[in-house]
């Protein structure tokens, strides 16, 4: 247990070990540890970010869905209105058509009746004249009474 040259040998060995450790052991191992710590920190940060992004995206999707529903409802509403308008218009047109056709029929009937009346009046006047002629042939000059006959015809 006396001090001897072993001291020198040990001191050299110690120095060499420390140098070796400093050169080849410590930097790569600590480097790996620190690198991994950084990677884990980055990963956690990225996952936080992704979570936030997801929440934003979900909110957006919900918003868009709501909008789409509202739009669809609006479109359906419009379509219903349009259909109602169309039906109303068609009905209106049908009505007016009918009125027109009926009015035309009445007009034709009137015209026909008037024409028949005219014919009848002419025939009646001719008949009356023929009758009056026969009655008056014997007593009255045909020409002298012509104005009276014409008056008669007018009155008919």
């Amino acid at each position, binding site marked *: *247990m006396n001090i001897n040259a072993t001291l020198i040998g040990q001191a050299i060995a110690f120095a060499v070990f420390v140098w070796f*450790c400093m050169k080849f052991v410590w930097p790569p191992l600590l480097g790996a540890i620190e690198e991994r710590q950084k990677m884990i920190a980055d990963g956690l940060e990225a996952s936080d970010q992704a979570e936030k992004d997801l929440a934003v995206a979900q909110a957006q999707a919900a918003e868009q869905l709501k909008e789409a529903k509202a739009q669809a409802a609006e479109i359906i509403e419009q379509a219903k209105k349009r259909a109602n308008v169309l039906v109303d218009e068609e009905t209106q047109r049908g009505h007016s058509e009918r009125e027109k056709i009926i009015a035309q029929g009445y007009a034709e009937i009137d015209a026909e009746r008037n024409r028949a009346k005219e014919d009848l009046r002419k025939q009646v006047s001719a008949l009356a004249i023929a009758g009056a002629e026969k009655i008056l042939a014997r007593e009255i000059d045909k020409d002298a009474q012509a104005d009276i006959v014409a008056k008669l015809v007018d009155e008919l």
Partner: protein
Amino acid sequence: MASEYTTTEYIQHHLTNAVMCTTENGIAFNKACSDAGFWSWHIDTLLWSIGLGVLFLWVFTNAARKATTGVPTKGQAFIEMTIEFVNSNVKETFHGKNAVIAPLALTIFVWVLLMNLMDLVPVDILPSIAGFIGSSAFGMDPHDVYMKAVPTTDLNLTFALALGVFFLIIYYSIKIKGISGFVKELTMQPFNHWAFIPVNFILESVTLIARPLSLALRLFGNLYASELIFILIATLGLWQLPLHFPWAVFHILVLPLQAFIFMMLTIVYLSLAHEDH
């Protein structure tokens, strides 16, 4: 316990280092080196400490080479745990920028821990193997083959570590504060007056020198004592069975603690050396 020993001889045998030296007749061992003086080598201490140091560096370099930044293997995770442990201790204590302190602390912690753990190897195994090899391969008397396998029970090793730390303390003191700053620190504290310079110098020198001294002696004393008690327990015959176990369990705490204290004090001393008053 070999039966032909007396207890005293047995204890002495287990606490003697294997020595190598050069004499006029070439390389000599053990008792032939008794008057070789300073230039003799404790080959068991050197062998075990360097072997364990190489083991430490081999394991850690392997881990460093295979280190990935992705999911670590269990082995890598264990190595990284050690690195993280040392790194957090260094960061808590030392606030400057220094590329040496952390690897130094790691080397001290793991290396001293490995050497301390040799204490848990049953005390007879390695000396017996060494004695067997010595007697069968070199024709030596097994009693003359020594093998003290716990390097930290050798003052040479603990002083080598402490002096390395001491050298760094002085180096960084001068590097950070300059020679004048370092001298001022030694002479103008704690009493800031020129008349007190000698008193201050004595006080501060004692403080400075006490650091490596206490580092070396604490580690040596703890390990030497625990090894001695392991050996004493081994002399008790059957009684060693119930006694050895609690003592060994106790050392699961003591051995890492001593390694940790050595590392921690190294960091503290070096961070003190970086502080400019």
